[in-house]
Structure formats: C-alpha cells, structure tokens
C-alpha cells in the first residue's frame, strides 16, 4: 500500500520532470539561438537550409562598439540607461506619492480621483502621441532625452493601484503612534511608510526601469530625426532596414544579448520582490 503510493508519486514526478524539461527547452531555445546568432560568422538574417552557424566570431560584439559611424550603439545604450534611471526615479516617486495619499490620507476628492485615474489609464496611449510631441515642442523639449523621461514618468501616477493595495496592508497603528509623538504626516510617509515598502518599491523600480528599453513607438515619434538621442530600441530597429539587415543582423543579436544580460541579472535577483509587488503585499515572500 505504502509502496504503491510512493511508486505513484515517483511516476508522477517523472512525468512532471519530462514535461518541465520539454517546456524549459522550448522556452530557453530561442534565447540560446539568439546567443548563438550573436556569435555567428556568416552575415544575414536567414541561414539557408541549416541551423547551426558554420563559423563563430566575436566581431559582432566588437563592431557594436567600434563601428559607430552608422549605428552608435554605445551612445544609444547610455541614452537609454540615463532615461531609464531618471524616469524610474520619478515614476517611483509619483506612484508612491499617489498611492500613499489615496491609501492613508482622507480628503474630499479621494474617491473621485481614484475612479478617474482608473478610467484614464485605459486610453490607448499612442493615439495621443502626436499631441504629446507638439506639447513638448511648445516647451522646447522635443527630440530631447528630458522629453522621454517626462513622457515615461508623467503618467506613472495612474498606476497607483497595486502600490495602494500594499500600503493598505501596513497597520495604521504605527502612523497614529508617530503622529501622537508629534510627527507630521510627511514624516510618517517618508520615515515610516517608505522604509517599510521595499518590495513594492523594488517592483515599481523594476517595471519602470524596463519600459524605456522596450518602447519603440513613443520614442520614434518624439525623437524624429535626432539620431544622437535615439534609445536602444529605436536604434536597433534601424539595423533591420532592408539596406542594412544583411550586414547588421548578427550585430543586432549581439546588441540584444548585451541589453539582456543586466536585465536578466536584475530580474533573477529581484524575483522575490517582484512577486510581492504585483500581489500588492498580500504575499510576504
């Protein structure tokens, strides 16, 4: 009896291992292939009738940093990094401010603001891109990195929902005690709530930090012809135009790998916080 249960479990686990291995292979193989392509010696985006490259080289990586006349990869990387850092700082602050105000403070317009914010977040954003571009032009910021930072972080306040859920779980008694001791509400926010919100802050930082690396459309409308201020997505997409794809496809793969490494590390390290974040603190990992 006992043995049969054990056997059944062992069999079940065996099936699970097989399924996991198969799925894992499915998931990892495109990435592995991307890495392989980034070391490929043959140029072009298609291999004819075979899959594994016939030769390997490091040139694709070297060239990203040396052959910068046409595609200034290091510069774009730096641009994106700066934009990502700035916009994630501002976004995170905005989200925390809004979420705290809506979660902890009581004032007349609280409820309407929450509903409006919920609804506003649903507009297909890029429809308004052209208007945004012209507005930025009015304040003389079009085609600049500052504009990108503004655009990526301005709307951040609307995504308060998850963070608010997190704040809701922090016991109110602490705030009240602090206020009795003479602390202002700002001090409560800054000195008590924020230090307790590490998971949610990490989550917000992670998600907002990644946005500039992924966005193509918005950046293209704002940057227009200003090549020097391109972000990585914008620049790398240009490598795939019909005039340059043959020469640059493998370098494109190399560029993607370079972008991927820091994000991968960040993500694997921060995984735990990410989960806590997205579930609004209902889970304490």
């Amino acid at each position, binding site marked *: 009896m006992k043995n049969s249960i054990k056997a059944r479990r062992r069999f079940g686990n065996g099936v699970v291992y097989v399924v996991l291995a198969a799925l894992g292979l499915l998931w990892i193989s495109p990435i592995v292939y991307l890495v392989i392509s980034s070391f490929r010696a043959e140029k072009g985006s298609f291999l004819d009738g075979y899959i594994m490259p016939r030769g390997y080289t490091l040139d694709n990586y070297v060239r990203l940093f040396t052959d910068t*006349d046409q595609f200034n990869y290091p510069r774009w990387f730096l641009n994106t990094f700066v934009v990502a850092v700035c916009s994630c700082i501002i976004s995170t602050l905005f989200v925390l401010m809004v979420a705290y105000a809506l979660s902890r403070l009581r004032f007349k317009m609280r409820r309407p603001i929450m509903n409006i914010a919920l609804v506003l977040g649903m507009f297909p954003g890029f429809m308004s891109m052209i208007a945004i571009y012209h507005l930025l032009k009015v304040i003389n910021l079009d085609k600049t990195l500052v504009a990108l930072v503004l655009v990526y972080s301005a709307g951040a306040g609307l995504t308060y929902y998850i963070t608010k859920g997190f704040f809701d779980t922090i016991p109110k008694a602490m705030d009240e005690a602090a206020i009795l001791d003479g602390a202002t509400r700002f001090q409560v926010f800054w000195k008590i709530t*924020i230090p307790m919100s590490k998971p949610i802050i990490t989550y917000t930082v992670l998600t907002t930090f990644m946005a500039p690396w992924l966005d193509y459309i918005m950046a293209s409308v704002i940057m227009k012809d200003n090549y020097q201020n391109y972000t990585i997505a914008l620049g790398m997409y240009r490598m795939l135009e019909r005039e*340059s794809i043959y020469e640059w496809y493998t370098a494109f793969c190399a560029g993607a790998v370079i972008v991927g490494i820091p994000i991968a590390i960040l993500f694997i390290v921060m995984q735990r916080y990410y989960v806590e974040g997205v579930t609004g603190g209902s889970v304490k990992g």
Partner: protein
Amino acid sequence: MSKKTAAILLSALMLVGLMAGCSSTSSSSTGGTSTPATPGSTPASTGSEAGGDSSTPATGGENISLRVWGPQEEQALLKEMCEAFAAENPDNTYTFEYGVVGENDARDRFLEDPAAAADVFMFANDHLRDLVKASALYEVTRNRDDIISRNVEGSVAAASLDEALYAYPMTADNGYFLYYDSSVLSEDDVQTLDGILAVANENGKKVFMDVSNGYYIVSFFFGAGDNIWLEGDAQKCDFNNEAGLAAAESIKTFTADPAFITGEDAIITGGMGESIIAGVSGVWNAEALQEKLGDNFAATKLPTFTLNGEQAQMGSFAGYKLVGVNSLTSQPVAAMDLANWLTNQENQTKRFETRQLGPSNTAAAADPAVKENIALNALAMQSAYAKPQNDVLGGFWNPAEAFGNALEAKDYSVDLQTMLDNLVSQVEAG
C-alpha cells in the same frame, strides 16, 4: 543614490522644465506676431533669420542655417557634400544640421510636423503625390530647365506632378530586377520564368519572389497590359479585366510551383548561392549578393512569363529617389541651391562611387563604370518595361498584399475573378 539627492535632482529637473516652458512660450509668442501661423516652428528650422526676411534674395554675407535629412548610410557623404557646397558659396556662412531619416520614412516624419522638418530632404518618389497634396514640397522653379535637361526622362516625370516640377532627381535605382546564380543558370535560362523554374526543379533549388507585396506583384499585371492610374484624385485599376485574370492565373501557377519561395526580402541574401538560384530584388542587396556569389553573381531584367500560353515580359515599378525642399523653409533660395548641388552630376557620380547608387543624371549614368555595374545594368535593362510609381496611392498596398497572400497560401476558396474584383474595389475605394 540617497533619497535626498534623488529629490534634489527631481526638483531641479522640474524647475528647468518650467523655466524652459516660460522662456519658449514668450519667445514663440513674440515670433507669433510677425508670422502668426507658425509660432510653433523651432528655432532650428527658422534659423538665425526671422521668417519675414526670407523674401530678400541671398545677396551674401548672410548666416544661413539649413536642416538636411538623409538616410543613415548617406550621412558621411552628405556631410562632405554640404561642406563642399558651403565652400563653393563663400559669400554666406552656412550651418548645417543633419537628421537621419531614410527616404522611405521621410513622408511620415515630414507630415507629423512640417514646421520642424528638414529644409532639404531625400525621399522616395512614390511619396511625391502625398507630399504635394499636403503642400509640403516647394515647387522647383530655379534652374528648372537645367534640371529637366540633365536628368533621365523617367526621373523628371517621377519628380513632377501636373506639369510642375517638385523635386530634384537624385538616383534612378529604386526598382527591382532578377538576380541569378550564373553557375547554375545560363543567360538563355533566365529569359523565361518557366526556364528558370525548370532548372530549379531539376536541381531541387528555389526561385525567390515576394509575391505578397504590391510592389512586386504588379509585374505580372503590368506584363499582361493592365494598369493602375489616377482620374483626378480617384485611384483607378483594371487588374480585374480579362488580361488581369490571365495574369492572376500565371501568378497562381508560379506560386504553386514547388521551386517557388517567398518571404521577406532578406531571404534572398540568406539563400542565394545555396538553395536559391534566382530571385527578384533591388540594388540594395547587390553588395550582399555579390559577396555571397562571388564570380557567379549575375543580374538581368525580369524574365518573361507564360500568359495564356504565350510569353509576356514582366513589368515593374521604376522608383527614383528625390531631393525635396520644404515648402515652409525660411531660406528657399539657399535650400534650392543646396538641393540642386546635392543632385548635380559630380555628386551623383560620387554617390555611385561610394554607395553604388544608380545616377539619374544622364551624363553621370553614361559613365562606363556605371554601365559595367551588374546590378545597375540589369535595372537599366528592366527600365524599358517599368512604370513610375507616382500614380499609386497608399490604398493600393494592403489589398495587393492580401491578394498575393491568398495565392501564396494556396487558399483558393474564393475564385480568382472574385478576388480580383475585391482587390480592385478596395484599391479604388482607398
């Protein structure tokens, strides 16, 4: 970074933003009094001169700043040419600002914000009509006769609309033709599509053509004598007549052939010399294919295909790249002179030498080196059967792609005549 530094950084940023906001509002509002319609134009495009001064001729001693757009591959050359232009005209001081906008994107980028677009920009001739319709292009009147006489006829036609010239022809190479592997195919084989396919099937090889693309699929319809044209502003198309049906049958036979291969343009550079022995593409792939095929690199006009049992020559679109001047430029004379300079014989030759782009200038094109260029020579052979793309509106491409898709996917659920009728009605509705 500590929280304090973060906060200081943030507030400084917002302050700068606000200050920038105030300063620009006031500066553009003062500008608004003289030219009320374009207070939004950036300082960069109006240059150092106020808009009102534009009418005074460039007598010399002026500071002229011009924004120039060209594709990525052109940038180095463009700088060189612009500096040469400044050296040629020492009376004025020129400052150039370069923007990277490819010929194919120029229309979209331009129309998003004409006031901030380049004074002088390169674009593909199929966008001419859209640009003219939006009054984006400055009509070319300076040196008009000279421009017309020194460029090949087709390129001038491509730069004109209703008798008016709107742009400066720059290249005559934006078309397509047949590349082939001369180690497998002989010159006789490539005369007919059937011949190519026969050799391909014999050797278990492929023939590439992106049929699900309006740009290429027209070659069958043009070959059958069909046309796409404009009546006033309305797009007309007769691909659904009897000849069109015959052409569609030919496409169906071609796409059903085991040797037929389709997909993105980049496939030809991957497969040529391996499984692909011939394919339809343009000069942008010449360098890559030469590298792959070496001595076997060959190109010629498109083949003939079997139409109702007889051979018919495949047609094509002839494309040109043009240089245009922004209708809102504050320096029309300088901008036009620059555009003229960028497209003169000397610079077209230079463009050919550095980038293998086919000149539209007759004298530059007569250069023996151009004639010997395999790809450009093939394009020249095809040009006899090519039609300009000017009269094709934006509404053509998606339906044409849809039609090609259905045949490539061998989806014969709807009969060809109905499909063609749908195609035409959508093209004409667009």
